[in-house]
């Protein structure tokens, strides 16, 4: 099923999009509907329901699909609804199967074979930057997202957000209708009103027209904006995204003298210093950095692995892998950056002596001139970015590990601050908000909602009828990126054409389409806009079609990358103050739902936060020391006050968090999200101050209330067992077999059974997980969830210990609580050859396959749960209730048709993505060959940015997995139980600096 594998690779969607198709004409429909208003709407609908397209519209939640998806085939091949009822009946004795319908196409799209998935290349943007994707489509339903291996920002991997974005497509809470002051309206009506508005504006040269959007790199959109600028010279474009720190861009601009992007090449870096940079997890190039870091960190090929110093307040994903971590206040980082700069021979306006370790780090950097890199934190002020660049220059890293790339963002944009001022000063009459949700996400100090109401007409394009839409005059449903045409650029300029995989399910519109109205071409749809732009950009060259096809097929446009430009270190400005004295409150987007964009996404809500492993909430993270002083523990409510305003959130004691510093997370405490995201957690924006947006001084009190936090890993110490085994680089060189060195050999097994050897002659599937490079980003968890139709169970059930993730990433701490060692350990099913779970199943619902898979047969399971009790790794998950959502029809679309949707009362667990194994085997068999190494990728393996997971056939001596299991670093989890797990681990090797030994807790303890 891998794109390069068997299923015909990629093809463009055009044939599907452009072919004549009888589907519900939503326009007509909406006109009909718009006669009825508000409450009467439904009644009108029912009355009107005799007309055919109305019937369809009412019957199926998503009219867009009606022409394309033959329902019957769905029922059979994608919904798996019957699984429930049949399972109930046992599917065994005396069950008469209910009659099912099967519905063929009227006109079958060419190049579509029902039952064979297709892959389309597109891209998703985060903070404006693109990440190339390949999206799996079953009968024109996107079901699974994979990274595009050829795309520089993806390299085949993705983050949790790309994975989970599929679920957003089918989110039943997305807004379906154009609303005018809360009343049902239509796109037609809106186009009319908005065009007239546009004409008036045009007369005033666009005086009073304000566009607010997130960061944009889309060439088409930029083109639209420039033509807007010509037609409406007086209009202004404001850019705001709470997950993006403008300082990064502005610093780069200062360095390069123009819009620029500072990019790092970690494949050459022997030493990395992170100034509170979560470079492997956040930012447009994160996945690339993660991949490079992982490759450079490999220890088995004899190279010196890279060494990472992390200077940060709250432990970050990247920081958890650091060889040395220095917990300092976020606001102290600039000062330390300057100290470091000074120590590296940069003229930095700083006084006072640096802590000892700064000099040690500096020496290490000096030792590795040209082979090191200092990465400034994405939330740090300009000064840090300038300092970092200065240090890199001083160390001769520019051109080696650091390069300045031409910027791809526009530079004629303004900030949210300016917008608020313009609104308050009455300069803005018409405000068009594209996507962003400032009423919720703007710092409270701006009081954006009050300001916004000063505008005469506010148009909001948004996927949800959320906080901002509620205060807007017009709300237009926004199309998901998998529903519409657009384009976007990666950090290095690579352009991807975003193609839709499905008609807008809820009739959403794209930013392009809203813009066309302003630009006076209201009838253009985004396909025309985008294709049109590219045609004229290619000067309608005859080869355009081939260009277009290739672009769509590959998922990126050849040689569209930007060049490197020269940057000059800027004299470092004096720091206004040396960090915040007293308690510092650090503001961060939530690790799994960001600024709130994903708060209605169940997968991400239930995805454990990388550090704490808690779900469904945002917490106030404090250091162990602080907790001790305040006498609070997990779940004690804390009141956080920042100049006058305060919020109340539950304590989370985060080992390794800087003292006198607490971290609060955005994205929660929402009203305008949906059934999933509303009314959970606190709203950190409420105490955010525009002047000190990411770190402010504040105070902390214990309220005395208690709060129940749902976290999926209660105990985070190894309790004397050694699930994770590690060694210093030196020790590793001495004893490469350190993980198993002190293991007693198993006693000779004395069994009544004669020593049975099951021959695994054919394929012998196995997996290796390299703990040395796992950064604990949890992408595998969400990828697995998407691939295997894993249900979301909700906070209460998680708190009861009933989460359903097939693969989990265990977090262990060792050493000193204030700055512990941190380990990530992904745990899928071990597929033990002597599986304890199988022996105790009374109905043979879990037995071994000839390829050594520990099979779980849902439809045979009666649910004794003995297998789970007897599983030493506790990787089995049980459907205590009917967790899979059988009712919300829109969610059916997100399901993977190749995996049974489990019903109530059955056990489930990781299957090594057996559906992928079977597909690959079948297609191999058809060509009468064996499956090639790498042909099968498990979901977790495919998504992993650091390639920590390897899967394959152990009988194939040349397979990557077979080789990796030959490594001396290999060890089996709980090997002493003689379960003979097929999943094996590679020990963790720490490349710490002699001079700083013990700086980070004493591992020996």
């Amino acid at each position: 099923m891998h794109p390069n594998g068997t299923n015909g690779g990629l093809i463009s969607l055009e044939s599907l999009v452009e072919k004549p198709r009888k589907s519900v004409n939503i326009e007509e429909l909406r006109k009909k509907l718009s006669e009825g208003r508000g409450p009467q709407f439904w009644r009108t609908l029912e009355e009107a329901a005799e007309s055919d397209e109305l019937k369809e519209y009412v019957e199926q939640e998503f009219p867009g699909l009606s022409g394309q998806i033959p329902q019957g085939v769905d029922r059979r091949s994608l919904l798996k609804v019957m699984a429930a009822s049949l399972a109930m009946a046992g599917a065994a004795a005396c069950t008469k199967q209910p009659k099912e319908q099967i519905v063929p196409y009227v006109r079958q799209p060419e190049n579509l074979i029902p039952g064979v998935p297709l892959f389309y290349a597109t891209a998703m943007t985060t903070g404006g930057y693109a990440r190339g994707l390949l999206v799996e489509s079953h009968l024109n339903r996107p079901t699974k997202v994979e990274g595009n291996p050829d795309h520089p920002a993806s390299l085949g991997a993705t983050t949790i957000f790309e994975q989970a974005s599929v679920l957003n497509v089918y989110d039943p809470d997305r807004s379906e209708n154009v609303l005018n002051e809360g009343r049902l309206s239509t796109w037609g009506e809106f186009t009319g009103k908005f065009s007239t508005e546009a004409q008036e504006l045009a007369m005033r040269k666009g005086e009073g027209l304000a566009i607010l959007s997130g960061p944009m790199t889309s060439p088409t959109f930029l083109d639209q904006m420039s033509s807007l600028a010509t037609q409406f010279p007086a209009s202004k474009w404001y850019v705001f995204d709470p997950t993006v720190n403008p300082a990064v861009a502005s610093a780069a601009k200062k360095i390069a003298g123009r819009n620029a992007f500072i990019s790092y090449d970690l494949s050459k870096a022997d030493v990395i210093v992170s100034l509170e940079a979560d470079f492997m997890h956040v930012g447009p190039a994160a996945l690339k950095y993660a991949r490079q870091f992982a490759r450079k960190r490999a220890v088995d090929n004899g190279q010196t692995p890279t060494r990472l110093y992390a200077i940060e307040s709250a432990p970050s994903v990247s920081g958890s892998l650091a060889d040395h971590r220095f917990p300092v206040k976020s606001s102290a980082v600039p000062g330390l950056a300057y100290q470091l700069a000074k120590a590296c021979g940069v003229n930095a306006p700083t006084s006072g002596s640096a802590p000892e370790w700064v000099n040690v780090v500096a020496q290490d950097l000096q030792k590795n001139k040209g082979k090191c890199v200092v990465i400034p934190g994405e939330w740090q002020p300009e000064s840090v970015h300038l300092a970092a660049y200065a240090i890199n220059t001083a160390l001769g890293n520019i051109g080696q590990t650091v390069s300045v790339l031409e910027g791809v963002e526009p530079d004629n944009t303004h900030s949210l601050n300016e917008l608020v001022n313009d609104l308050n000063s009455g300069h803005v009459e018409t405000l068009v908000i594209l996507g962003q949700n400032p009423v919720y996400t703007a710092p409270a100090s701006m009081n954006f909602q009050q300001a916004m109401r000063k505008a005469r007409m506010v148009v909001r394009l948004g996927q949800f009828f959320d906080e901002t839409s509620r205060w807007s005059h017009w709300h237009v449903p926004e199309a998901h990126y998998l529903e519409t045409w657009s384009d976007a650029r990666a950090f290095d300029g690579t352009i991807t054409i975003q193609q839709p995989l499905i008609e807008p399910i809820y009739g959403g519109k794209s930013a392009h389409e809203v813009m066309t109205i302003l630009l006076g071409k209201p009838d253009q749809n985004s396909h025309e806009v985008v294709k049109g732009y590219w045609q004229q950009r290619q000067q309608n060259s005859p080869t355009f079609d081939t260009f277009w096809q290739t672009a769509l097929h590959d998922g990126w446009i050849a040689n569209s990358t930007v060049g490197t430009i020269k940057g000059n270190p800027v004299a470092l400005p004096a720091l206004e103050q040396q960090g915040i004295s007293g308690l510092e409150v650090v503001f961060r987007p939530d690790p799994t739902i960001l600024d709130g964009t994903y708060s209605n996404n169940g997968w991400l809500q239930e995805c454990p936060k990388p550090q704490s492993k808690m779900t469904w909430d945002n917490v106030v993270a404090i250091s162990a020391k602080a907790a001790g002083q305040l006498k609070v523990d997990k779940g004690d409510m804390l009141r956080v006050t920042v100049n006058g305003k305060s919020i109340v959130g539950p304590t989370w004691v985060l080992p390794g968090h800087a003292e006198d510093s607490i971290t609060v997370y955005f994205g929660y405490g929402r009203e305008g999200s949906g059934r999933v995201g509303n009314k959970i957690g606190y709203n950190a924006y409420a105490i955010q101050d525009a002047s000190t947006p990411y770190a402010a001084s504040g105070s902390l009190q214990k309220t005395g209330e208690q709060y129940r936090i749902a976290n999926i890993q209660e105990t985070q110490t190894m309790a004397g067992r050694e699930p994770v085994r590690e060694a210093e680089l030196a020790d590793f060189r001495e004893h490469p077999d350190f993980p198993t060195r002190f293991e007693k050999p198993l006693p000779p097994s004395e069994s009544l059974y004669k020593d049975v050897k099951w021959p695994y002659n054919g394929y012998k599937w196995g997996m290796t997980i390299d703990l040395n490079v796992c950064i604990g980003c949890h992408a595998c968890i969400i990828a697995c969830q998407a691939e295997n139709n894993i249900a979301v169970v909700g906070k209460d059930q998680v708190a009861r210990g009933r989460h359903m993730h097939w693969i989990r990433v265990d977090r262990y701490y060792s050493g000193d609580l204030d700055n512990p060692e941190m380990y990530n350990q992904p745990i899928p099913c071990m597929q033990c050859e002597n599986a304890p779970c199988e022996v105790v199943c009374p109905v043979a619902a879990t037995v071994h396959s000839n390829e050594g898979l520990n099979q779980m047969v849902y439809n045979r399971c009666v649910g004794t749960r003995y297998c789970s009790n007897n599983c030493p790794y506790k990787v089995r998950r049980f459907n205590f209730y009917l967790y899979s959502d059988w009712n919300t029809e829109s969610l059916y679309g997100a399901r993977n048709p190749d995996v049974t949707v489990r019903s109530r009362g059955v056990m489930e667990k990781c299957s090594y993505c057996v559906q992928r194994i079977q597909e690959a085997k079948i297609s191999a068999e058809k060509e009468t060959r064996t499956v090639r190494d790498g042909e099968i990728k498990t979901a977790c393996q495919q998504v992993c940015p650091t390639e920590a997971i390897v899967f394959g056939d152990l009988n194939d001596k040349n397979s990557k997995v077979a080789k990796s299991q030959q490594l001396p670093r290999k060890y089996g989890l709980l090997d002493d139980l003689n379960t003979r797990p097929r999943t094996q681990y590679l020990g963790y090797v720490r490349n710490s600096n002699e001079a700083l030994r013990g700086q980070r807790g004493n591992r020996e303890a």
Partner: protein
Amino acid sequence: MATEKLELPAELIPDPGPNRILSPGHTYESVSDRIGGVVLLPLTKAPKKWLVGAFISFIFVNLLMLCMYVLFTKGIGIWGVNIPIGWGFAIVNFVWWIGIGHAGTLISAILFLLKQDWRTSINRFSEAMTLFAVACAGMFPILHLGRPWLAYWLFPYPNSMWLWPQPRSPLEWDVFAVSTYGTVSLVFWYIGLVPDLATMRDISPHMWQRKLYAILSLGWRGSAIHWHRYQKAYLLLAGLATPLVLSVHTIVSFDFAISIIPGWHTTIFPPYFVAGAIYSGFAMVLTLIIPMRAWYNMRDLVTMRHIDSAAKLMLGTGLIVAYGYSMEAFFSWYAGDKYESFMYWNRMTGPYGFTYAMLIACNIAIPQLLWIRKVRQNILAVWILSLIINVGMWLERFVIVVTSLHRDFLPSSWGMYIPTKWDWGTYAGTLGFFLFLMFLFVRMLPAISIFEVREVVHHEAHERQELAEAR
């Protein structure tokens, strides 16, 4: 002496004391009337305590129905079980009930083989107790399934899937053990009843009663040859039931011992599970029979002798159980296995430590009072002790099931188990169900084996004769 009218003897009949299993002066006829009379007593004359008790337990039966309804409609999630603690109250109660069942078979089979005359007037009662306890126990393995409506998959039957049960699983052994145990106990109980049913047939005042008992007694007429075969069959059943009763709890203990979970994977389980079963069984016998003999004024039939012997047996089995605990603790230290030793340390000092403390108190410390003769002679004391032991044995199962599971191998997957109101409801429900059946039983069938008491009368007559001759 025979009762003139259908009433319980008005005056309080004294207990003949710890040396006699029957008050003097009983004749074949008097025992028939005294025991049969209880059953033939019209409802209006039934002791008020019986009415109240039956009614209360009936309320709990309905509670059980409610719990089952919610369970089947909503799912197993209404209970406190989770991952890692996949088994909770359901299995705790299952083992507890099965254990209680053991006393019946023990008394009727093993004591029969050992020719313990004091078993006579309590064996019928405790056999009934066995049946009802097994009925309660048998419920749980089905209720605790994720898909209880598929429970029949655990039986080997030819199906269109060509699939069969997986007989390496101790749960599959359970299926056979428990169903066999239930069946054999029923057979044993019924065979014992037949002659008494004949008696009931012949002393019943109403024609319909006579007919009913006649049918149930299969037309038993006490032929000498019938008696001969009857006794042979009974002896053989006793011989079969004895290893059965041992095997059943052994197999139940395998549910744990076969697994690899520290705290479960223990070779000592079978013997001390069996001992524990008998321990709790006798506790339950006493808990029930002490009030019953008072209400029905049967101190002359169920005497201090019975209670004293039962108490001694509890003391004995209790000591075996104590030995079991200490061995467990010893091995967890001696084996030097880090998981084992942690498990035991956690069992004693972990979050569930208090249950362990209570368990030791109820099962080992307090019952030592039974060494004292005075305590054994004090009805109330014995009764309270029996209650305590019942609680203790339930705690033992809770400790074994929960504290072993909640912290096993990987710290990352440790968890806690908090029983929900539905857990408690179901448990209380089965208690009600059990008691309700007992109440019905003493109403409808002779709760004491009449013909065996006749044998006692016969023997005592002999002894008196021999004494006379000796003089």
